[in-house]
């Protein structure tokens, strides 16, 4: 099979490009520690969230110095708790699940972006530095009221932060 020289050059360039892509992403995933969503969150009984130790009471909880965990329920067509209040300069691990259909979880303007699947728990870790307020929206179609499904994440200055799972 005779391959034209230009074709050979192009082929080599294409392969280099692809290998380049794969290595940058792999580097991003392993070395710099960009967090990927995986199966770490485990599973849950979607019709018995009120009996589940993690989700019976949607809340933010301190688990270490500057480390927090947020247990969030995304359901037709709200997020609980709302707002989700966290202190500045903290690392927050979100655990999110749904009692009904698939939802999305996007903290607007950040790369905190994940799917929420009933029966599964989505785990993602986000670092909050400056105080401020972020929009939280559902970006997966979840029913007739999908476009109204929003919430907010309030990052309070550390000294003002009061812990609470108020809904």
């Amino acid at each position: 099979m005779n391959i034209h020289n230009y074709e050979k050059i192009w082929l080599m360039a294409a392969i280099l490009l692809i290998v380049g892509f794969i290595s940058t992403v792999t580097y991003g995933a392993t070395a710099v520690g960009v967090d990927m969503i995986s199966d770490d969150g485990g599973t849950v009984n979607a019709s018995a969230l009120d009996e589940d130790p993690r989700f019976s009471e949607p809340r933010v909880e301190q688990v270490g110095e500057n480390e927090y965990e947020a247990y969030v329920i995304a359901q037709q067509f709200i997020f609980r708790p709302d707002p989700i209040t966290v202190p500045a300069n903290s690392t927050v691990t979100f655990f999110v699940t749904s009692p009904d259909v698939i939802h999305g979880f996007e903290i607007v303007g950040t790369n905190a972006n994940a799917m929420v699947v009933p029966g599964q728990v989505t785990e993602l870790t986000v670092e909050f530095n400056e105080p401020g307020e972020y929009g939280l929206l559902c970006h997966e179609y979840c029913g007739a009221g999908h476009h109204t499904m929003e919430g907010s994440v309030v990052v309070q200055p550390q000294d003002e932060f009061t812990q609470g799972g108020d809904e």
Partner: protein
Amino acid sequence: MMSEALETGTPSFMDRFPQEAAVVRASLISSFIALFLGAVFGLIQALHRTDVFRFLDSQYYYTVLTAHGVLMVVSFTIFFLVGVFTWATVRSLDRPLVDIRYTWAWYGLMAIGTLMAVVAILGGFIPSTDISADVLFTFYAPMQAHPLFYGGLAIFIIGTWLAGADYFRAWYAWKQEHPDERIPLQTFMVLTTMLMWYIATIGVAIAVVVFLLPWSLGLLDSVNPLLTRTLFWFWGHPVVYFWLMPAYLLWYTVLPSISGGRLFSDPLARVVFVLFLLLSTPVGIHHQYVDPGIAEGFKMIAMTNTMFLLLPSLLTAFTVVASMEHGARQRGGTGLFGWLRALPWRNPAFTGMALAGLMFAAGGFSGMVNAGMNINYLVHNTIWVPGHFHLTVGTAVALTFMAATYWLWPQVTNKPIFSRPIALAQVVLWFVGMALMSNAMHVMGLFGVPRRTAEPQYQGFDFVASFGSITELRMQLALGGTLLFLSTILFVSNIALSTGSPRMSGLGKPLSEPLSPAADSPKVLDNLTLWFGIAMVLVVLAYILPLASIITDSGIVDPGVRPVPMLVDAANGLGPISAVTDAASRVVAAVVGVVP
């Protein structure tokens, strides 16, 4: 142009194979009806979500969006595909199909399946019936559609399976007559694509027939949403290549001739199609990068495979440009870039395909962003994503199909196109409209504006655009969408008016032979059993562990997850009439459900 065609007087496809030409016509017409309806819904979306003009209550936006998605990416593309594949198989084998009644049977199944699904979707507009399927074209469980929807999808897919078998039968018959010859290039492309389709549809067939249809009929209490979603994407990525392969077939085998030249290399074209067969399916998990319940390692594997899938597309870019350049030089073009001027830009078929190819390059770029797992976090499920695939399937594929129609239609009807200048304006208008709409979508996506949302305006916060303003971008999207709608109207009317053109014979357009013929390539390339076997092994390797882990973690079905029918309030939906239609449609769906 007419007299030119008459002078050459080559018999057209219709002159030679009138029965097959009728099937090609029926498929293309079905495809264009879907395109037209899809464009109406597309326009409604473009105006509604940008708040330019809203005449429907926002809950119906999702009925519209389901119709747009299904009509465009299932009906329009796949009906066109079977039309082109039927033409390409018969033309390149130079023999009729084995049994034309069988051919009409698969066409009929595809048509019935489409009608069932469309009825179920449009039922969503009529609250007094309990028929609805507001589940979008991805139909993620536990949102539940009416059984007609799932039944229709199943029948449609069976139709495509039988179509594939038709092409294999024709090839088998041809092989008996030509024992030592290489598979003709177009037939090779058709067969490898159909093999890819058989593998890909295993996923969606299991999701629909084993889980969703019985579940919607009440025979199954619950399903595992992560499992059906994963099975959906098992099919959902390769289907992208199923849309793309007929466009590639046209770029490889028709575009060089229209440019006045010859395809660079037949062997390389075969390599490209084999690569698609091998690599299209073991990548679907790249649509689930941000899903829970799937380990990071499986996502990395899908990502790596996806990157390799760039290879055949990059090779295609080379071959297409090289063949066009060859054509231009044959026509007297010179210089490093000067040859571009020698191309037949007045020919709508050429210009449309060339513009489609150009947009595909842009789409390929935004696709690389999606495929990079970490960057994906920024754009996942934002309107960036529709911005991306309106360049790929919405232009590279759709515009190539429309442009190729200007070339193919006269050969399957024996009637010239009504107006070539309108055709030329139409393809340019599509390009301009899409440049606007897709650009606006990409930019808004970067600012976090979600896709699939009737009113992307929120109470508690605003989207902040770092350049331009969100309002400007909305206007741009709406304007682009309107131009695209007008372009579709021009296309559909031009074809409809062509039926009034005088019938003539001798409209055939012969295709040129590749510069480097099939004989230059090793015979093993034509060993379809081998490639099919390797493709199966790759799919099993990519999917066996993720599927096993989903099933061990949350079961084949997950009893905790209850169905959520996408119905308008059941209390006022259950009038006497709808009770009857409901019973009737359940019977139909039950009967239909037995067929697979």
